[in-house]
């Protein structure tokens, strides 16, 4: 039988979890070249909301935690290959179409747009199933010549830490809002206007007529068969595997980066005073479990 037993109610556990959740910050970036176009992104996010349930099978279940994008900046670069006049057939050939054609005079080139997608991408942690794990962490400042008690007195004691150790993390696929099409269309339109900036109005109108509907033009260049909304969704969820990166980052964070609860070893019982030295007791063999009502910590002294 353990020397010490402590219990944390479900309500208190929820408050401890809220601290863990609110401290989560994640940022990453990546870019890929897809031939006719390239895409890069840079994201930063935090977590909010959600619910936590303690189970009798010694597991914890976290559900419906929102992923809040602090920034989600993409960069899409593509070539404008079709802004040409000329190229028509001057000497037709009834057998193979054209014997001689005039050259094309083209303008255009690469353009890049940087849509801010933070307002139109939605995702959340659907479900985290976890057990509690207690880890003994040696403070890096604790030297070999220092006793545990001296380390505690010097402000860098070793610690016992309770982590939420996920069995699985399931993040919902990133959902792209329907306004993505309009956003991309507007940005490409603006980029084309920037290219044509110094050109007279009749040239702008001619080029835009040749381009036709901008959305169709972009989709043709990017090889999008469905909608830009679906294309972005596939890009982030699968091509960049942002979903997988998030699941890994969340699992690693819960399991080892920010503890649910921690205490020093040796554990201070009485401070120094009245000519007496402080009293602290060493904690050993810590076990942490949950049931549907509370988290239970058990340990030995010695």
């Amino acid at each position, binding site marked *: 039988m353990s020397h010490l037993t402590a219990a944390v109610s479900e309500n208190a556990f929820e408050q401890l979890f809220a601290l863990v959740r609110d401290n989560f910050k994640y940022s990453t970036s990546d870019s890929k070249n897809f031939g006719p176009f390239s895409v890069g992104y840079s994201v930063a996010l935090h977590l909010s909301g959600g619910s936590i349930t303690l189970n009798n099978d010694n597991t914890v279940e976290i559900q419906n935690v929102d992923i809040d994008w602090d920034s989600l900046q993409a960069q899409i670069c593509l070539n404008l290959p079709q802004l040409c006049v000329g190229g028509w057939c*001057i000497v037709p050939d009834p057998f193979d179409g054209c014997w001689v054609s005039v050259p094309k005079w083209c303008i255009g080139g690469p353009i890049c747009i940087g849509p801010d997608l933070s307002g139109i991408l939605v995702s959340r942690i659907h479900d985290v199933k976890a057990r509690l794990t207690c880890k003994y962490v040696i403070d890096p400042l604790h030297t070999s010549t220092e006793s545990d008690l001296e380390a505690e007195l010097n402000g860098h004691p070793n610690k016992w830490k309770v982590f939420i150790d996920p069995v699985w993390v399931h993040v919902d696929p990133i959902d792209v809002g329907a306004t993505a099409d309009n956003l991309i269309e507007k940005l490409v339109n603006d980029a084309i206007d920037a290219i044509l900036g110094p050109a007279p109005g009749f040239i702008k109108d001619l080029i835009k007529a040749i381009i036709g509907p901008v959305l169709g033009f972009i989709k043709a260049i990017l090889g999008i068969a469905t909608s830009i909304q679906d294309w972005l969704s596939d890009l982030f969820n699968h091509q960049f595997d942002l979903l997988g990166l998030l699941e890994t980052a969340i699992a690693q964070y819960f399991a080892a980066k920010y503890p649910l609860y921690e205490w020093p070893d040796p554990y201070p019982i009485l401070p120094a005073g009245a000519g007496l030295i402080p009293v602290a007791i060493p904690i050993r063999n810590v076990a942490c479990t949950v049931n549907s009502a509370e988290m239970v910590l058990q340990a030995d002294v010695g």
Partner: protein
Amino acid sequence: MKVEEKNMNQMIDLSLFNQRRFDSGAIGPLVAILHNFADPGEYRGVATRGGERSIFYLTVESNHAASQVNIDLASLGPARATGAQPCCDCAKTDGARHFSIGPKGYVLFYVSTGAPGFAVQIGKSDQGPGPKSFDSRALQAGDLFAVTLVRPGTYSVKNTLSQGGRERGELELAYPPRVGKVAYQPPGPFRVQSGKTLEPLKIKLQAAQGLVFEVTATSRLVLDLQKANDGQRRSR
């Protein structure tokens, strides 16, 4: 990740759109001249613009299958050798200035970018100095002059070498259409006969529609912008 900024204004060559005159004897962007060299052999060409002069070579081979060879007069570069050293040989070994075509093909002269004003003369190499087989300032029967006009408005059209030289055609180029449900494709080229007269004299073109002059008698064709229709830029 830093979002790159590109100087997009560098991508547009405004000289393409600022021309008011299109002259078969002073070749520039948006026009092309086609000539068929039916007689196989070695030809030597000279392209001039103001004081600039470029030499190039053309081989017409009876067994050559190409139907078209494009010669960009703006990229030929100046003649390398001057004075006592013949300038021909260095160009002959330079792939960028030596072209080949079959006797049924067309040589197409054009200017990819820059100022207009090029003229081209070509003669058989073995005939030395003398009258040339082709002179772009006086197109002959069978030659073609192609123009792609982009600035909407009214143009005068004239063959300055026609007898009398007074006859003047009128060309109207429509303003670009509004953006529709599909991308705009200009209609096929409009064809005009340039002989003793221009036929037809009234020409109506859609935006960016091609225009071909089929030369049937000595011609130097000049189109001058008379009244631009720059319109008012539409909203996007």
